[in-house]
């Protein structure tokens, strides 16, 4: 989306621990609530952010914080979720055609299903930087 149309940026930093994921998803839902999203769209964003944070906690060894940045525009919301752990293996976060029902492996699939665009920027040393966008339906 075009940065010059920004309605505002909200930044959040939480400890990389399970008990703080709810704070992230509620804060991002509140941000999304200020745009013209449907309730269903807001729920989608909430779950995608929670899945991203959960992955930072479960897989980003060595990172003690998660940074969540929300960029708001009339057309939609861009959320960045980044950690400073060992970055994801690129093949671990690629697009899969379908979810096989197993105990793990649904998080990235859900993120890619629920958001309109998803980009993973992974670095073994710098950590994982996920940028995802949800467009307001017109």
């Amino acid at each position: 989306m075009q940065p010059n149309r920004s309605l505002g940026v909200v930044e959040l930093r939480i400890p990389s621990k399970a008990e703080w994921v709810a704070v992230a998803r509620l804060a991002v839902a509140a941000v999304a609530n200020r745009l013209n999203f449907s309730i269903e769209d807001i729920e989608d964003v909430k779950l995608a952010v929670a899945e991203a944070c959960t992955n930072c906690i479960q897989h980003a060894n060595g990172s003690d914080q998660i940074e969540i940045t929300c960029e708001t525009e009339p057309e939609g919301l861009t959320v960045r979720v980044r950690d400073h752990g060992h970055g994801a293996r690129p093949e671990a976060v690629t697009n899969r055609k379908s979810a096989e029902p197993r105990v793990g492996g649904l998080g990235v699939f859900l993120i890619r299903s629920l958001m309109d665009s998803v980009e993973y920027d992974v670095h073994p040393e710098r950590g994982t930087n996920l940028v995802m966008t949800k467009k307001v339906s017109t």
Partner: protein
Amino acid sequence: MDIKVNVREAQGQTYVVDLNGEIDVYTSPKVKDAIGDLIDKGHYNLVINLEKVRYIDSTGLGVLIGGLKRVREHGGTVNLVCTNPQIKKIFDITGLVKIFGIYDDEDAAMKALV
């Protein structure tokens, strides 16, 4: 932001697990423990009532899938009660509708067990 778990015996060998709240990476261990306890005690036909669950993420789904796998090894099954459209959508997207029996009310979920 939290989950309440209540386990109750229904007719026969059947148990119902009532969940109320949000199931995420923080709260799902509590759900996992409750289901695991039942299975450890030899109860393999379960209804998990999600009517009062407002939110579930992949760790919550993982707990349900894990429970189903364990009871199936003993010839049992897990039926779900779910009416929330957002949660139904998640079961849809992930294909879990195909492996779980998902019902609109507890009666139907119970009847389908036996």
